[in-house]
């Protein structure tokens, strides 16, 4: 089974600054997928970024990028130029290539302040 750990229950960042959310995971699979989802107060789970484990290049989506360290089983999310609309819960999740269930961490609550 895969486990995902998010060690930061809450974080705060000022508008326009950069923040990094941490995630570690445990898996015995050789290939798998990693995801970051954003869940604002509306509770819809929004896909932020995804990474395939066999791709060494870190994924990037506009202001969002990841630092994927496969050997360390670490998958952190960097948000640049933080905006008030980035305030939300952020969940890290893993999916094995042969599996079907996303395994979620407990989430990090991010507050962006003016």
């Amino acid at each position, binding site marked *: 089974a895969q486990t995902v750990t998010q060690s930061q229950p809450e974080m705060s960042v000022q508008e326009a600054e950069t923040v990094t959310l941490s995630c570690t995971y445990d898996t015995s699979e050789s290939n798998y997928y990693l995801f970051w989802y954003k869940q604002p107060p509306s509770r819809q789970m*929004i896909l932020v970024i995804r990474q395939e484990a066999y791709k060494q290049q870190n994924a990037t989506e506009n202001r969002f990028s990841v630092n994927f360290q496969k050997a360390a089983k670490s998958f952190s999310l960097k948000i640049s130029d933080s905006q008030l609309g980035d305030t939300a819960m952020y*969940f890290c999740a893993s999916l094995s290539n042969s599996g079907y269930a996303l395994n979620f*961490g407990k989430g990090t609550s991010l507050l962006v302040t003016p």
Partner: protein
Amino acid sequence: DAGVTQSPTHLIKTRGQQVTLRCSPISGHKSVSWYQQVLGQGPQFIFQYYEKEERGRGNFPDRFSARQFPNYSSELNVNALLLGDSALYLCASSFWDTSSGNTIYFGEGSWLTVV
């Protein structure tokens, strides 16, 4: 294109009753999964269906059941509701191809309150 759609968005049920939640995946997606998210926690996997077949089941009691229809929409049924079933139920639609791998999108969820 429409995203993953779920209905109803909110509902209140009494203990012991039964509930049916519905989900329509993104057009072209053949896989639908269901997750339960209780307040303050990450979502927990309940079921996945692909091409109308159950591919996986999480650690939930037999009171929970689901099915997928020929148009790939899905229903989640929960019988004999307990107070602890109160949660946000999320439906996810997924698509896999050789170029982009596996991508999973969620609907807005169905809020179930059991009183």
